[in-house]
């Protein structure tokens, strides 16, 4: 915001126009990026067609590693989806002002990440064409799904999360769309006129809007925490050593927010540069995000330590075997990638120099993403491969082109939507940025001067 010594005076008008400018006609670079995303998506779709025709055998699965890259990606994207609602809802309840400049991006990211994550359960099941059997709909056979299964919990949690976060995003957008509507011309004006559903900013509208927004935030907050807890229960409810742990819910939530913040930084850095939003998204915002990373990252690191400690302290031979296998088994490289990226890297953020250096943050954020992907890979694949209950079960797991193809597709899908969004809707909240500005003061008398 308007800090001392900032070159331009950030006024309401400045905010509106700067942000509205981001919606201008896109550059060639933009189209290149979009093209790349769509191409990746194409790869994913082709891979999926192969999977449908020939079966999941094309992926790297092997007994007993029956979940692998697909579920890893699923958890990864669900994780990404978390910071958004956290920043917009929880920080909103905490009245922390700095969120205003970044929460729109985060929220959009959330929605698209959930859209991506939601695809994986459909892709990874053996008979994708029967996915609807998981939905409780009245059918001729008189059968219902099994609500005891964590997968059904997932379905409800993810479904709810997608619906609510989408509504939350749209809610926040309405006043801003109205703002750009009043500046726009041509087809865009029509579009915004429709999508702003008659917003004028009258006191009645603000009155209900603010209240409603508050309650939405209040609902979204426990939801955020629940969703990744439920996802974590997919594993915690199973008796696989390395999965079956009570620490999982908080551990996953922290991890999710950690990865989410990482992704926000990854996305904001270029947006800020390209759209010239330096005055609105300042270093201070990045620093705060970094702090959030530091906090959650430390929690994650602590969780890792906890897992190993409990494995040792419990004296449970299978637990011990599982974690020994993790750290020193054939998949040690994955484990150590995860520990270094998530356990140690965030510690750099203790230094203000690094916290306030955008480039450094950007690099770190990339590693955070990688680290968190590997965390899920380790938890899922390595725990199954190291199956210690049944000494005879032997695993020889290696991902194949099919795994990578689908994963690439998911990134394409995500970035396609994100890019489309930032060019067509204000990627930074107009009204809320204004809220944290000093309003134009002044008495009638002055007005006449």
């Amino acid at each position: 915001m308007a800090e001392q010594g900032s070159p331009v005076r950030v006024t309401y008008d400045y905010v509106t126009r700067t942000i509205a400018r981001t919606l201008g006609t896109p550059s060639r670079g933009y189209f290149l990026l979009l093209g790349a995303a769509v191409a990746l998506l194409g790869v994913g779709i082709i891979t999926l067609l192969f999977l449908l025709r020939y079966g999941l055998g094309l992926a790297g699965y092997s007994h007993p590693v029956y979940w692998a890259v697909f579920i890893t990606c699923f958890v990864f994207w669900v994780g990404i989806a978390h910071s958004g609602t956290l920043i917009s809802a929880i920080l909103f309840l905490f009245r922390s002002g700095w969120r205003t400049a970044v929460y729109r991006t985060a929220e959009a990211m959330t929605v698209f990440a959930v859209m991506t994550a939601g695809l994986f359960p459909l892709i990874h099941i053996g008979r994708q064409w029967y996915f609807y059997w998981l939905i409780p709909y009245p059918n001729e056979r008189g059968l219902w799904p099994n609500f005891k299964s964590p997968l059904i919990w997932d379905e409800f949690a993810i479904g709810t999360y997608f619906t609510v976060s989408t509504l939350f995003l749209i809610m926040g957008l309405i006043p801003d769309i109205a703002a750009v509507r009043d500046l726009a011309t041509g087809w865009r004006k029509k579009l915004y006129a429709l999508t702003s559903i008659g917003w004028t900013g009258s006191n009645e509208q603000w009155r209900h809007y603010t209240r409603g927004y508050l309650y939405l935030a209040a609902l979204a907050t426990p939801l955020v925490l629940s969703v990744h807890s439920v996802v974590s229960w997919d594993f915690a409810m199973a008796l696989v050593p390395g999965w079956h742990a009570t620490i999982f819910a908080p551990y996953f939530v922290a991890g999710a927010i950690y990865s989410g913040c990482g992704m926000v930084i990854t996305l904001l850095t270029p947006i800020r540069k390209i759209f010239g939003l330096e005055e609105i998204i300042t270093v201070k915002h990045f620093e705060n995000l970094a702090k959030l990373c530091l906090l959650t990252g430390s929690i994650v690191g602590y969780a890792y330590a906890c897992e190993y400690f409990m494995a040792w302290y419990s004296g449970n031979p299978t637990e011990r075997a599982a974690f020994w296998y993790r750290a020193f088994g054939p998949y040690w490289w994955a484990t150590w990638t995860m520990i270094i990226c998530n356990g140690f890297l965030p510690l750099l953020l203790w230094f203000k120099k690094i916290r306030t250096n955008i480039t450094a943050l950007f690099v770190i954020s990339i590693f955070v993403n990688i680290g968190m992907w590997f965390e899920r890979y380790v938890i899922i694949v390595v725990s199954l491969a190291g199956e210690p209950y049944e000494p005879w079960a032997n695993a020889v797991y290696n991902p194949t082109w099919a795994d990578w193809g689908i994963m690439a597709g998911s990134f394409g899908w995500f970035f396609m939507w994100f890019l489309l969004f930032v060019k067509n809707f204000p990627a930074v909240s107009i009204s809320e940025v204004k809220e944290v500005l000093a309003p134009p003061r002044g008495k009638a008398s002055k007005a006449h001067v």
Partner: protein
Amino acid sequence: MTDSLDRRRFLKVLGVTGAGAAALSSCGIGPEPTERLIPYLIQPEDQIPGTATYYATTCRECAAGCGVRVRIREGRAVKLEGNPDSPINRGRLCARGQAGLQGLYNPDRIAHPLVRNANGTFDDIDWDGAIQRLAAKVRESQGKGIVFLTGAEQSTFGDLVDEWMKQVGGRRMSYEPFGFEALRAGNRMAFGTASLPSYDFGNAKYLISFGADFLDTWLSPVEFQNGFSQAHAFDAGRPASMAKFVFVGPRMSLTGMNADEWIAARPGTEGTLALAMAQVILSQHLARVPADASRLVSVLGAYSPSAVAQAIGIDAGTIVRLAREFARSGGGLAVAGGMAAQYPNAAEIVAAVNILNYVVGSVGSLVKFGADLAIGSTNTFADLTSLTTDMTAGHVGLLFIHGANPAHSLPGAFQQALAKVGYKVSFSSYMDETAAACDLILPDHHALEQWGDSRPRAGVIALQQPVVQPVFDTRPTGDVILKLSGKSGTFQDYLQGKWRTRRPKGFDQYWFDALAKGGIYGDAPTRAVRLAQGVSKISFGPLVAPAVQDQQVIVFPHPALHDGRGANKPWLQELPDPVSKIAWHSWVEVHPDTAAKWGIATGDFLLLKSSFGAQKFPAWITRSVRPDVLAVPTGQGHTAYGRYAKDRSANAFELLGAQATTYGGRSFIVSASATKTGEHRKIVTTEGSPRERGRGTVEVLGLARAKALHPGEAPFHHEETPEYASDAVAWWAERQHEKAEIGNYKGEQPRWGLAIDLSKCTGCAACVTACYAENNIATVGEELMQRGREMSWMRLERYWLTDEHGEPQGAVNSPMLCQQCGNAPCEPVCPVYAAYHTPDGLNGQVYNRCVGTRYCSNNCPYKVRYFNWYNYAERGGQYEAFPEPLSMLLNPDVTVREKGVMEKCTFCVQRIRGAQNQARLENRAVRDGDIVTACQQTCPSEAIIFGDLNDKRSQVYELAGNPRGYHVLAGLNTKPAITYLARVVAQDTPSHG
């Protein structure tokens, strides 16, 4: 899928045929094809559609002559089961026997006669043309030497061949790759008789096997295994419970794996050990020795333990101990065979072992001459060598080959010799190496399609009858011969004629009984034998260890593929070798020390170069072989023999010499140089951790401890629930149960359960193949198996038993299959109830409801759920498991699973439902024993018992309460329905990793 089964080919069959075997995919995408129902022309009175009928016949997969009952559904043979009436296998069957079906419906069978044309390839020819052509050949080659080479044929067919050969002035020879020349020679040396006695393992009180793999390949494996498990199993009731079993040999085979003690004697010194033991027994008067044994003193004098210990490679004390144990047991049985009977000095070894039996008086009681085994009566290797010479010299104008594949297993000289033979005729049903080299192929019926008999043992005549219509345009060789020899009638008439001579009066009844029982089962009187005169003059060879220059390479018969005849059957190819757990390719066994010396790891290729041939095999590094010995299995390395066998790995026979041994046999040990080629392959193994790591997967008890157990004791209970928790757990279980008492789950229900006695299980894996056959389990092939995608619902886990030095003394084999848990972890996680608990206590798996989340498998601590990664039933698919006509052996009562669904063992639920339906029809309850699972039915050692755990009178209930009983991973409170009975080992301080 239904319409893909070409009904026309087998009987004119009901349209409903195979509807049961319809693939799940019919519920997938796309409409159902309109089916056609083709009625019988004439209803066979013994066929009820939808209901199985059983016919008794004889298994011809090896020469043991086990009786089988073939399960027929709508004219298709869908399962082979042992015939309880047969005294040979007593209703049991081995993996090779089970796989006989895949020989019948093999996709690579020769469908019609073939004749070689000018440019060396084969043309089709009609039967009449072929027979005329052959008749002409016979006429013109008379006097030019006619030879008819058969397999081990002690049968009416053999007689017919003999007659015909007499008629055309030719000679018949029979060939068995792993012959028994040494046994006969050794018996002649010791007792002056060349016949092979039958062995009574069942009543032995102490067993020593000098190399004889009587559980996997030696003589009559199923019979011996059945007897062995009786003697060796632990039974608290019996006075001399558990006969100790000692295995002497350089390599631990399936048989050796079941030993309580493994003596890795230096190859060739087995006989020396036997003599030394005999010497101890005589000198220390440990047994009441027969009078004439005194003549042995002179011979044995030299063989004092101290004198020979170094040569054998063990310390004298061990020899004395063994001798004591053996003699004192009052029922010691020593057998020599396998490797020990295939050394250059094998005859002496056998003679030595005979002497050992003789001095403790086992000859006559446990070693029964009189009830002689027929298999020994094949021609010797020397005869075959001379045949080769004749052929090379061009003295053979016409060669017939039936039921043998010498081109694969005989030395290369034979192949070259074949080229010199005027005209070669093969009766093979498959295009094996020999057939491929012949000029005319007249495909024979499969054993299940034709009449025949065999005389495996004096007093036993096993009858063989056609149980299905011929699958292809083939003809019984018997018929062909009769036609050629100008006789009228078919081979069936000929056979009946022969049988009629045995019982002219009341023949029809006699014949009918034989058909119903599967043969005539009599007992030949035991013949007393005395020591031969020359026994004192036998020179048993040097007492010092031969200086080992090169590595000794042992070539041993593969337990499943044997000499290679099993290699065209996917079930056998995919069946992991009981010891190495390797499938689909062969290997060379290397001791870790040797491996370290050469710097090789498992999977590295070793080039073995003997003075006769060179082959390369991937190394399998194991302590189950002597450091100075390399061991290679036969069975692979075919250059023909169909899609499953062709170009797979290397042929171990090619390492062996062509020179016959002094006793006319073939030496299967050869010294060879081993060099690392630098190539590496990922071996296809199902082996996980060879050590059980104290996870409670298998439990082992020392003999003393086991004996001390009294009924009601439960030494393993603490693993189930710790004392302090048991009350709480019980209360909780009760509450849960109450809450679950609703709907179908109300009231009295059975709880199906299994009891598996690890003291009986030998790890022979017959159950695995039986499970494949019963449950339409797909074979996935080498590539997928390498990626750990085998579908075997039942797997055998082999955990080494080690002595204090960590050297393997044997292994515990534990069949691991779905435990049908009471509190199954797999069930609650399934989002669509595809995995659920049936009222009768099974873990139901509803294939057509499964969407394939695979969560159930992740949550299964036993890892016994298997996923269909591809559509293995897809016509012409890359991984098609049942290519025509293999699909005909699909069990109509079991769904063929589609891609994307989870599958697993359900205790043969189709058999359970079948029995329940039958009982309902007869207005009665299901009785204990009505339901027999496929694995239980076939288990040669009777280790598996199925039944209702809620039925206090059932056998399984009793076993479940056995003090040795335990549940795998019981600590997880999964409440498995399978009770394992702990393995009991003779030494009292067992350790397993």
